[in-house]
């Protein structure tokens, strides 16, 4: 750097000009940039073009293992091994095995479940009021489990005693009262044992049979994948969006009877809402309870009831939890009336 060369007045002027240019530029910068600085309500036409209102947020018609399980549980009832006792009473014997099993709960997602007989929910046990029931329970899981049945029975058959892995126990009691009962594991910690999948419906039919109908079994539940006490998925019969992608086929004017129960953990309530139709709801499946004629009912944890409905028009009827969050996280389906 030469010592002689001084900063001339002209140079200062040049620098000043650069500075003034800079300030002016800063001022106009806002107008020149096309980047919005204020948040605006979206009016992007592309939102309108994409059809987001067709409830196709989780469309996938593949018949996965998880869907097969949900579909099976919808119509499969376990009546047990039936024999007659000397006094003329019907004896029903059921095999129940607790198994640790990975269950597909949404397409491609495996849940490390604890199950009765390998499904979540467990099998739907079914009998008639007055039958003698014998549940041969074998624990092949990694934790102590039990079966706690709702209904009326001697307290020692109530399932509060832990049956340890490798052990077996027989629950024996008379089926009463008629209605829709549930069963679940009652070993502590309770929430974890139930949430892992140890629950199911237990139907005691009245002695005078109900009117013939298309009978469907639906257990509402949820899955907490990261164990933060909040469910990531909500389903009926254990598989997210099962009956949305594979609608349940129904005949026009046919009587449909749904055995519906709520075994969702971590959320207080779940609900059932039917579109474009009304149904009769019998709490706990009792004809003598005050029933409701409605399109939406709500169930607390452990609450259950029977829905009876006929569809007067052909077409697609949606049903889902009326808690929108649950619906969008898997608890949504269709009836297809032909």
């Amino acid at each position, binding site marked *: *750097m*030469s*010592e*002689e*060369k*001084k*900063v001339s007045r002209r*140079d*200062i002027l*040049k*620098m*000043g000009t*650069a*500075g003034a240019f*800079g*300030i002016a*530029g*800063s001022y106009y*910068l*806002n107008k*020149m*940039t*096309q*980047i*919005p*600085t*204020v*948040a*605006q*309500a*979206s009016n*992007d036409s*592309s*939102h309108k073009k*994409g059809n*987001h209102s067709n409830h*196709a*947020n*989780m*469309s996938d018609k593949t018949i996965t293992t998880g869907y097969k399980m949900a579909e099976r549980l919808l119509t499969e009832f376990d009546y047990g091994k039936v024999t007659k006792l000397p006094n003329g009473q019907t004896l029903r014997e059921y095999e129940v095995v607790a198994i640790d099993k990975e269950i597909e709960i*949404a*397409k*491609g*997602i*495996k*849940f*490390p479940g604890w199950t009765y007989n390998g499904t979540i929910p467990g099998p739907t046990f079914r009998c008639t009021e007055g039958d003698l029931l014998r549940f041969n329970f074998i624990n092949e899981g990694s934790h102590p489990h039990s079966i706690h049945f709702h209904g009326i029975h001697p307290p020692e058959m109530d399932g509060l005693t832990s049956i340890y892995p490798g052990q077996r126990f027989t629950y024996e009691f008379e089926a009463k009262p008629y209605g829709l009962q549930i069963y679940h594991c009652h070993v502590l910690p309770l929430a974890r044992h139930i949430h892992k999948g140890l629950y199911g419906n237990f139907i005691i039919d009245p002695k005078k049979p109900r009117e013939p109908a298309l009978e469907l079994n639906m257990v509402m539940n949820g899955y907490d*994948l*990261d164990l933060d006490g909040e469910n*990531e*998925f909500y389903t009926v019969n254990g598989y*997210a*969006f099962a009956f949305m992608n594979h609608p349940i086929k129904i005949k026009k004017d046919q009587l449909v009877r749904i055995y519906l129960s709520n075994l969702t953990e971590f959320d207080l309530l779940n609900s059932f809402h039917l579109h474009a139709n009304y149904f009769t709801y019998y709490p706990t499946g009792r004809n003598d309870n005050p029933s409701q004629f409605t399109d939406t009912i709500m169930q607390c944890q452990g609450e259950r009831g029977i829905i009876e409905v006929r569809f007067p028009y052909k077409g697609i009827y949606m049903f889902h939890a009326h808690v929108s*969050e649950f619906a*969008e*996280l*898997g608890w949504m389906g269709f009836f297809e009336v032909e």
Partner: protein
Amino acid sequence: MKGKWLITVLIPLVLLIGVLGWVLKNGAGVEKDPAAPIEVLNIERIKVTKIGFELFVSNTGPKPLTISQVMVNDSVWNFNVAPQAKLERFDEGKVTISYPWVEGDPHTIKLITENGIITEGEVAAATLTPETTWSNFLNYGLIGFYVGIVPITLGLLWYPFMKRFSRKSINGILALTVGLLLFLFVGTLADGFEIGAEAPSVFQGNMVVIIAASLTFLLLIGFDQYQQRKQEKKGYSPFGLALLMATGIGLHNFGEGLAIGSSFALGEAALGTFLIIGFTLHNITEGIGIAAPLLKTTPRFRDFLLLGVIAGAPAIVGTWVGGFIFSPIWGALFLGIGAGAILQVIYVITKMLIEDHRKHNEESVSWLNLSGFAIGLLIMYFTAFFVKF
């Protein structure tokens, strides 16, 4: 002789291989399988498009993983993964989600793997991510220009005023510069750690910052010593020192550019204009700092221009990188280098100050120097109010 020497090398090596082999075969004596699947899915960048979201993801876990479900704002949503949903270790993929996002709203996106491991990504305030078009490129460059080059040039304009100072006051100004630089050093380091923490953990972002900073610092010092020995020169040429400062500050400004560019890209554009004003104010002082070492000389106009560009232009590059190709790990690396470079300038100026005062038999921490230093720190502290939220 030679054989023996070779054997002494080989024996520990063979033993080591033996030990490793044994551990690999038999395990460490503790349980073999992890209790829960270890899956690490990283969301590196979320682009908001007209159709919805595009997530750039990578698998940095030890095992392959499969993305099975996607939720947006607690709602299961359809998605696509390119090239496929199964990602091998270090594989990258693009998840495309068609979603009617709402301008300005926050959106949470959860990716769920086959084993139920959840990775969460967030769009703080949804707005279209700027596309890499020429006009955007130009706009971003312009922002970088006004944040970097303009304020530094404005700061350099104080040169004629500072020129009238006595030797002691010049030293005071240099002490002020040390104050400014110390603030910048800590700030750059902190920004580096912040960005580094967002990088996939396998890359250890914080260590990248520390390694980059310490190596840059030592390398620059080593390079100086080598040059000084070579040229048999004593101390720094003032212009050399100013150049050094401009480089360090330039790297820091690259980081500022990154911050601005990515804040636009992340939809926090409302901050943008304020950020620009704030950085401009903040950076004027950097110009003063760069001019300080030149006070005893008579630089030419083009020297100022060169210094302004070296210190300011990286802000332009940073804005582009932040706006279009932002990746936390590169950010961490550049900010680490910046911190190291600034630290080296602090070292050089402090050494120069001490030597100058010793030569004149004065204490180096005079009241004037202390005040300069404090004012430097405080100026930076208070002008930073404009850019910190």
